[in-house]
C-alpha cells in the first residue's frame, strides 16, 4: 500500500436511487490514523456514504477509493471493519456463536480467533455475557457486541455507523478512549453521528445535509470559520440557517 495516498479518497461521488439523488458531488479525504466524523441530521445521506466506503453500495457518479483501491472491491473488504446502523446480530445465537461466525468469515483460525474474541469482548466490557443468547441482551449490549464484531479481525479501517447510540455516557467515554487508542495504533476510523458533542471528539469533521457536503475541517477550524461557539451553531451556519 502506498502510504502517500490518503486512506479514503472520495471524488465527486454521487448516488441516486432512480430519480432520487441521495448523495451529490461529495469530495473528501481521510488520512491514516485519524478519527473522521460524518455529521448530519437523519436522512442526510450519512449511511449511504458509509455504505459506499464499505463497498456494499456503488457510487452512480464519481469515484470512491479506499486504501488506494477503487471501490467496490472484494479484496478491500477484509481490511474494513464495518458496524451497521442496525445491530445485525443473530439473536437466537449466543454472543460467542455470533463472534465465532463472523471471525470465520474473516478467516480467523482457532487460537487467534479465541484470543481476539476475548480481547474485543473485554474492550466492550461484555466478557461476562459471552455465553448469553443475544435475544437476552439489552439494546446497549447489542450495540457493544456489534462494535466488538467490527473490531474482531483488527482492520486498518473502521467504518462505524452511529456507534454510540443507546450506550450510556460512562461506557461511551470508555469506547471513545478505546477508539483513540486504536488511532494511536494506526487504525483509521470513520464514524457517523448526529450527536453534536460527540462530533467535537473527532480529529476532523464533515457536515452533510440533504446529500451535500457542507464543510470538512477540524472541529476547531469549523468553529473559527463559522464564528460559532459550538458545533451545533457551526452546523446551522453551514446549513444556511445563519443566525
Amino acid at each position, binding site marked *: 500500500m502506498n502510504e502517500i495516498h490518503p486512506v479514503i479518497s472520495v471524488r465527486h461521488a454521487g448516488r441516486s436511487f432512480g430519480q432520487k439523488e441521495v448523495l451529490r458531488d461529495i469530495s473528501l479525504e481521510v488520512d491514516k490514523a485519524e478519527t473522521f466524523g460524518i455529521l448530519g441530521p437523519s436522512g442526510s445521506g450519512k449511511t449511504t456514504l458509509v455504505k459506499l466506503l464499505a*463497498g456494499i*453500495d456503488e457510487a452512480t457518479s464519481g469515484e470512491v477509493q479506499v486504501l488506494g483501491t477503487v471501490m*467496490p472491491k472484494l479484496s478491500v473488504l477484509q481490511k474494513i471493519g464495518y458496524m451497521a446502523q*442496525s445491530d445485525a*446480530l443473530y439473536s437466537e*445465537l449466543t454472543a460467542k456463536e455470533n463472534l465465532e461466525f463472523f471471525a*470465520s*468469515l474473516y*478467516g480467523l483460525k482457532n487460537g487467534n480467533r479465541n484470543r481476539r474474541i476475548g480481547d474485543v469482548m473485554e474492550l466492550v466490557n461484555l466478557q461476562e455475557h459471552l455465553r448469553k443468547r443475544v435475544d437476552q441482551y439489552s439494546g446497549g449490549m447489542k450495540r457493544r457486541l456489534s462494535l466488538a464484531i467490527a473490531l474482531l479481525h483488527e482492520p486498518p479501517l473502521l467504518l462505524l455507523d452511529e456507534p454510540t447510540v443507546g450506550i450510556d455516557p460512562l461506557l461511551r467515554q470508555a469506547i471513545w478512549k478505546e477508539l483513540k487508542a486504536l488511532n494511536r495504533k494506526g487504525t483509521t476510523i470513520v464514524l457517523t453521528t448526529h450527536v453534536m458533542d460527540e462530533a467535537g471528539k473527532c480529529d476532523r469533521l464533515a457536515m452533510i445535509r440533504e446529500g451535500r457536503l457542507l464543510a470538512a475541517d477540524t472541529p476547531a477550524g469549523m468553529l473559527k470559520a463559522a464564528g460559532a461557539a459550538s458545533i451545533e451553531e457551526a452546523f446551522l451556519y453551514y446549513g444556511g440557517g445563519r443566525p
Partner: protein
Amino acid sequence: MRIRAIALRILRQFIHDKRTMALMFIAPLLVLSLMSLVLGGGIYTPKLGLEKSAAVLAEPLAGTGAEIYEYTDAAAGEDALRSGRIDALISLGAAAPEVILEGSNPAANQAVILTLQELLRQQAPAGGAGLSLAAAQPQISYLYGAEDMKTIDRYGPVMIGVFVFFFVFLIAGVSLLRERTSGTLERLLSTPLRRAEIVLGYVLGFGLFTVIQALLISWFSVKVLGIMMAGSFVYVLLITLLMALTALTLGTLLSAFAANELQMIQFIPLVIVPQIFLSGLFPLDTLPLWLQRLGLATPIYYGSEALLDIMIRGKGWNAIAADVYILLAFSLLFMTLNVRALRKHRKM
C-alpha cells in the same frame, strides 16, 4: 471455510429454535398421518346392495363384515347406488356376478373389491349352485366411471414430495428473508464473503437438516403409515432430498421478492398450491393443453412422477433418471438466479 461457517451457523440457529425444527420434522408426519387416516388408512366397511338374483350371496358376504342391503326391485337398487347409500350393487348374471361400483370414493372401491376377493377365496373350495357361480371372476363396472383408483397409495408418494417441498420452501425462504430485514445480510456482505458462498452455505446448512427430514418422512410413510412401496427406499430418499434442495433454492430465491414474512407466506397460494394441482395428484389429461404444459415447468411435477414410479410402479433408475436431472437443473437454475438476485444488495 466460509461456506462451512454459514452452514455451522444455520445448524446452531436450528438447534436454538426448537419450534422451527419441530415444524420441519414433526409437522409433515402429522399431516401425512392425518391424510392416511382420512384417505382410508383405517378399515372401511363397504355397503353392498344385492339384487334378487344375488340374494344367495347375502350370508357369505355378511361373513366378511360388509353391510348388506337386499333389494327385490332392480330399480330400487340402482337408485340406492346412484344416491350413494350403497357402494356397490351386485347381481348374478348368467356366467358370473356383475358388480357395479359407485366409483367416486376410491377407498370404498377398494374395500368392495377386497371383500369380493375374500369371498372368492373362501368360496372356491365349497360347492352349491349359486355359490359356484359366485366363485367365478366378477365383472366389475363403475357407475361414475372411475378407473382403478388407490387412495393413500396413490396420494401418499405425491404428498411426501409436496410436504417436503412446502416446509423447506417456507423455512429456508423466511430465514434468508430475516437476514435481509434484520440487517445481518448487509453485515455479511460487508465481509469478503462471495455471494455464491452465501447461497452454497445455505444449501449445505439446510442440506444437513433436509437429509434428516427426508429420512424421517420416507421411513415414517413406508414403515409406520404403510404406504405402498414397490421400489427402492434409497431412490425415495434421493428424490425427497432433491425436492428439498429445489424447494430450498426456490424459497431463498423468492425471498428476495418478499418484504416480510407475511409476503413470504403469500407465495404459498401462488407457488406451492398450483404446483400441487399440476403435480399429477389429479388426472391432468382432462386439463387444457396449456395448463398441462405449465405443469411441466414445476419441480413438484417431476418429484411426484418419480416418487409414483418408485413407490407404486416399482421402477428403478432408468425411469427416474430424467426426473433426477431435471430437479438438479431446477436447483442449479434457482441457485444461479439467487446469486444474481443478491446483486441487488452488493454489486460484486
